């Protein structure tokens, strides 16, 4: 991507970017559609991700040893969080810098990582209310680097959305997690 950004000739830069775009556009769109739900949200995340990939020098793929797809997925995730927070707190809401820093990547591929049966997972998630689902998944989105720190802006957005306190949010998250675990444990 750095090569694309450093091209002096606009035509050549567009052509170089076009090759990358064509290779990964379908996978990114599939992700956006699956995760963001309706088309307008998927549109926003898809476009924001490509813009960050092209225009933001702090997103430098060459620094990381993950596939390009995964790298883009991380950027899309931050874009999605950004959009949701701004939708709740207003467009002036300052999100933490969303540069994809090296420590943000979890290079360790846990062997047991994908060990929950998908059908069971879907059933378990259906046990949750919309609020529980939203709170639990928002917290988990920030657990990728194992720091378990949800930025203040995200907490603020959730507090505003559900008219509750930080303490209650943590309780909702714990209760939802326990509910999913209990459901899965009983059916294993």
């Amino acid at each position: 991507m750095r090569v694309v950004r450093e091209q002096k000739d606009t035509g050549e830069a567009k052509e170089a970017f076009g090759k990358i775009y064509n290779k990964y556009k379908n996978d990114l769109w599939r992700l956006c559609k699956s995760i963001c739900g309706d088309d307008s949200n998927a549109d926003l995340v898809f476009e924001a991700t490509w813009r960050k990939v092209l225009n933001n020098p702090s997103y430098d793929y060459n620094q990381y040893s993950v596939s390009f797809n995964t790298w883009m997925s991380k950027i899309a995730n931050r874009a999605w969080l950004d959009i949701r927070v701004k939708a709740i707190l207003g467009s002036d809401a300052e999100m933490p810098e969303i540069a994809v820093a090296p420590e943000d990547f979890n290079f360790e591929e846990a062997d047991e990582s994908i060990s929950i049966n998908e059908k069971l997972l879907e059933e378990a998630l259906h046990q949750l209310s919309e609020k529980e689902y939203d709170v639990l998944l928002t917290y988990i989105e920030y657990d990728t680097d194992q720091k378990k720190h949800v930025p203040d802006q995200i907490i603020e957005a959730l507090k505003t959305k559900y008219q509750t306190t930080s303490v209650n949010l943590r309780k909702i998250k714990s209760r939802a997690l326990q509910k999913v675990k209990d459901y899965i444990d009983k059916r294993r």
Partner: protein
Amino acid sequence: MTSAGKIVSISNMNKMSKDLDVFEAKLGSALRSSGHLFPGTDSEMEHFLEQTDPVTLPEKYQTPDFIFEEDVHVPVKKVSINTVDFSGSAKNWALAARNGKNLPQSILDKMKEDKKRSQKK
């Protein structure tokens, strides 16, 4: 509760808390592999692509033009709607006229047309 009982109870709580942490990590990975959250590792991404069906990319995203179009459309300065169209050759004619050059009749006619068109807008 005896002190031994308390220790056992705290130990159980710690174990439960640890179990929940382990479960949360597994759940996170499962969610990132099944299209609920964006994948964060290559294996989660591979799993997601294997498990989900491709979806049709909208026509507007078939090419990356939307990214470059936005860059072009960023207005440096807003102009009023009623100003003369300065796009393309009209701009050159206006410059030529300002420099006192004689313009051919065909160009003068074209400028009149442009002016009329812009007044209609």
